[in-house]
Structure formats: C-alpha cells, structure tokens
C-alpha cells in the first residue's frame, strides 16, 4: 500500500521555500492557490525524502464558489502519495498555471479539463480542446451547462 505523506514531513520540506500562509491542510490533502502551485510542485518533486516523481492524475471539481483542480502525486522511489488541490475563485475566467513543464503527464489531462470545465492552464504548450471539436459551445462538465441542450 502507498502511504499518505504526513503533515509534518510536508511542512518540513516546504517551510524554507513557501510561506506557511500560502497553503493549508484539509483532511489528507494540501490546499493552495494558483500563485503558489508551481513553486510547491517544484519543491515536492525535488525535496529529498519526498521526491514525488509520478503524477497519477489531474481532475477538476465545479463548486458553487470556485473551481478546484485536484492533483494526485506518487513517489515511486519512496512509495508514498500526496493529494494537492488548487482553488480558483474566479468562475468567469478561471486560470491556473500549467504544470506540464514539470510533469509531462499533465499535458492531456489539463487539456481535458480545459475542454470540459473551461479552466485555462497558463503556459501550457498546446492548450486545445481534446474530446470536443473547435467551436463547440460551452463546457459540458460545468454545473451550469444545460443537460440535453
């Protein structure tokens, strides 16, 4: 079984690089905002003893007040995992920095989220729709998208 990283280890690794006000813990997940996302990912990917070298999945949730993008990381070397959530309160034009330059596996999944939720990933190398076609109206997985329209 994969072990969830404890808060102490995460705090210990992050405190030199990221202000403690920039992230918080909810249940077993780390929650942050779009400004600190790339920095946190860089630290967690390279910090000794953590080394989250494998990005398993990226997905998104549409809450009434914000969009949330969820990253699930694993370390194959140390056999532990971490869930990272990024909240984007701007529901009109949501944008979040892309982590594709760090984790190449995020490429298509960020495109999928862009396609179905309409969240822009800034500095993504090729941000185009992946399931639907160019010119499709709207983003079907948003809660305000009409069903059967």
């Amino acid at each position, binding site marked *: 079984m994969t072990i969830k990283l404890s808060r102490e280890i995460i705090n210990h690794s992050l405190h030199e690089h990221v202000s403690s006000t920039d992230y918080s813990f909810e249940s077993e997940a780390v929650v942050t905002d779009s400004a600190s996302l790339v920095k946190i990912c860089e630290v967690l990917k390279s910090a000794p003893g953590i080394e989250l070298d494998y990005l398993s999945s990226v997905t998104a949730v549409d809450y009434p007040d914000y969009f949330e993008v969820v990253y699930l990381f694993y370390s194959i070397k140390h056999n532990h995992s971490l869930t990272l959530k990024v909240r984007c309160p701007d529901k009109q034009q949501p944008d979040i920095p892309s982590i594709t330059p760090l984790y190449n596996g995020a490429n298509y999944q960020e495109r999928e989220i862009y396609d179905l939720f309409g969240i822009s990933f800034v500095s993504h190398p090729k941000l185009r729709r992946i399931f*639907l076609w160019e010119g499709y109206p709207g983003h079907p997985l948003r809660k305000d998208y009409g069903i059967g329209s």
Partner: protein
Amino acid sequence: MEVRIEPCYPEIDAHESRVIEDLKSSSTQPIAEPSGWLDEEINRNILVTTVDKLLNWGRKTSLWTETSFTACCTFEFISTSSSRFDIARFGMEVLRSSPRHSDLIVTAGTLTWKMAPQIKRVYDQMAEPKWVIAMGACGISGGIFADSYSVVPGYNRILPVDVYIPGCPPRPEALLAGIEKLRKKIEQSSISNKS
C-alpha cells in the same frame, strides 16, 4: 459306306434361315449414334436461373464485415464471430479492417460526434453494394446517451441503415436473427433496384 445325315427338323431350319436373311437384308447400314442421351445429361447438370438470383445468392452468402467496434456491443459481435456462435456458417467469418474489402458494416457501439466523420468516411470508401446493420440501443437511437452533448443519436443520422437490432447489448442470437433478416432483404433485391 456313305453316311447320309437326314435333316431332323426341316421347318425349324427353314425358319432360322429366314430370320437370318431378313436381319441381314435390313442391316446393311450401321445404326446412327443416338444423340438423345446428351440432352438428358444436360438436363441433369445445368441449372437455369436469373441474374438477380445468382447475384443475390453470391452476395448474401459471403457478407464480409467491416469492423466498426466503437463500444461494448463489440464483445457480443466478437462472441458471435467466434467458435460458439460461428458466423462462418453464413460465409461471414472474414472480418475486414479495410473498407475496400467489405460489404457490410455492423455498428457495434455508441458513436460520438467526434468519431462520426471517420465512420462516415469508412462507409463512403466501401464498394457498392453495401449494407449497414445498426446493432444495439446506441446504434439505433443513441440509447441511454441519446440526450448527450457528444453522442450521435442513432447511426441513421449519418448512414442508411438496413437492419436494426435492439438490445443493450443484443445477444448473439439476436445478432444472428438480424443477419438472417439482412440475408432475406438481399435475396429480394434486384440489380435494377438495390432495395
């Protein structure tokens, strides 16, 4: 001493002599080769039919299928085509990956609008005559995804469907019944009018 042999039955000998002389005089020419037996052989070995019947027989007994395996009905189709249900009985065991070799497209699965242009292109590349079987609820009407933003509500939006097979998915028996229906349809077609 001279021995003289008396004829014992002179009438019988005379009768025999007459029979032989008659036969000889009536048999101066060889009997002509009888040609009637040839007609009989021809009647036994040559069938007379119509062009329509011959063509339809050829078409319905070697329906080669284009693989259009877009979703889960595929597995019922695979089951139908392998040993247990064995559509080789109908000359259909050859599944083609090239539309140029195919007569029939079985739409085994849900079709999305993103995939639809490719399916239409494959159908357009198939040589005439060609037939379409819409297999399963999604093939008929989009099934449970009929209201979805991304699913084609029935293959008949893009292809002319010949036979509809309901089911989610249809069992192999249902697919065989549909194939049987298509064979009957082909039997009734004519070169002057496809359907």
